[in-house]
């Protein structure tokens, strides 16, 4: 909860959707209360996929350009 508040205060609101600390803090809260739920694995996998998407957003084109695939 502390991490959520910290990021809400320090990160511009329109950037919170892509702030990994905020996202994982929210997920951590969810996981703390819903760890034994049936949908937990799917939610967790979705969260990981979203994090991966965030990473790709920054690095994917760089990788392509180094490999000569994005001239």
């Amino acid at each position, binding site marked *: 909860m502390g991490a959520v508040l910290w990021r809400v205060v320090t990160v511009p609101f329109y950037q919170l959707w892509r702030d*990994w*600390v905020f996202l*994982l803090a929210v*997920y*951590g809260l969810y*996981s*703390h209360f819903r760890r034994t739920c049936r949908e937990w*694995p*799917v939610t*967790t*996998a979705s*969260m*990981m*996929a979203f*994090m*991966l998407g*965030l*990473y*790709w*957003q*920054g*690095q*994917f084109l*760089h*990788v392509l*350009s*180094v*490999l*000569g695939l994005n001239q």
Partner: protein
Amino acid sequence: VIVSLLFLVVANGAALLGAWAMLQRVKTGQSSVDLVLFLVIRLLIISASILLAGVSGTLTRGCMAFVSMVALGVLVLRGAHRQINKPKWLIGGGWLAVLWSILLLRLAIQVWFFSPYEGDAVAYHLPKVAEWVRSGGITREMGLHPSATFPAGFELIEVWWVLFLRHDILIEVAGVEFLALAAASTAAIARQLGFEPKVAWFAALIYVLTPGVYFGATSCMNDTPAAALILATMALFLGGAGFGPVLTVLGLGLGTKATYGFAIPGMALLAMLARPNSSQALRSKAWTWGLGVFGILVGGFWYVRNWVWFGNPVYPIGAPDYALSSVSVHVGPSFPAFISNLTELVDDRIYDSHAPLGANLDRSAGWGAVNFGCGILAMMIGIAADPRLRVLALAFGVSLVSCLALVDHHPWYVKYVLFFPAILAISAAWFSTLHPGLAAVTFVALAFAALSTFLPYDLPLARFSDLARQSWSERSSLSVPEGIRRGETVAACGGYRARSYLLYGPDFSRRVVYLRPESTQDFLNQLRQSGARAVYFEPSSTVQQELLSSLLAQKKLEPLRNSFYRVPETVESATR
């Protein structure tokens, strides 16, 4: 070439068999920890051999081959080869073995086609290697980089891989040796946490494919070796290998890079909190402590050398000129640097969004897709669920904090904490076993990590193609102008930007003389004494730029290309 290859094989056979024989006296009985010990002992044997030969002035292919043959003969006569057990399939076979095989094949291709290219490696680390190989011993001449006198433990392993062939075609294998140590250490740590071999070696694969770690190993940089030795220390603590072997790694670590020492607080914490369960009965006390003392002697050599030569064990730190250099480092913890380092890492660099990845990690973290996408989340859950992972995370966290507090806030500081992604990799590997959906995302991320570690940003496809087109014997990332002949003496001048290792040529056939002039006349005097007619001048400061401009304006040098210059006939005859 065939004789050289034979020497290389014999020398490596002796180092492997010697390491195996020593392992029998210090092993813990746990295969994952003993593999780490074996790799550490092999590195110690190689380091000590090169160091002894270097100090005694016998660092030649012939001497080293002779000593290796004698050592191998003695080991065989004493029956060391009979102690070799049938190798265990540590990884566990199946799809993981296939992935590791593909990775090893790709590493072999990269070693063959890469030639030293990274700016820091060719300006700072490797000129020493070339000087030592050419002169057959440890030299006081180390090149133009202001930090050249820092510990050079990794360079000893690089010398091993170039000495017998007298060629740098296999120089990247030195980094691969440490990549293997990093993988074995990550797997050993995971095994100590109670994970199955398959999970442990999957964690090792994820860690090895961390871009910063992987590129560090294939670029002749010493940051991955330092990270590997930090992980080895942790693995040996967790595995209960005892303080002797840990001292060995400590010595090798401090002798490789001082940043290894920055992570000691976390390692010490782990030593206090870990409860190893290995058998003491297997080990000889004399051997374990002997190894420890030997490691400290090998690693401490560089500090003693600097103390004897320069009156300061950590020279050039503290020297007035060095403090003014743009590559200088501060000493001791800095709270402002820590805040800047941590904030930038968390808020920005961890996304790796600003630039393509490479060994120097400019403006990036280089932790990669798996560690970011899966590892952080998995570690968060793991810390809550597993007390053993909690202890390990605490140790890694303390080491991370101490490193970030002790390094300057510059564009490449994250390369000093490349050990940290190991805990993210272990967490991600464990997490992927919990549900097929989690495994699927992890594998997609791993595929991207594999894609992103084909080529670093400073060796893009076009440059790589240039290297691959050259014959192996001529392969070099430096394009020498036509006016510079093979084997010709080259005078090198400049500072930390001077890529002087490349001047020697891949077969070390060119003599390089370093000029450190303070004026135009001083330059001409030093040039005359060197006997060189070809000059490589790469200014790294305003003063050096002004000196070069002055030499060109006075027509003392004729520009060629790629920072090469020719001494005009008129100047040459006048300076004679």
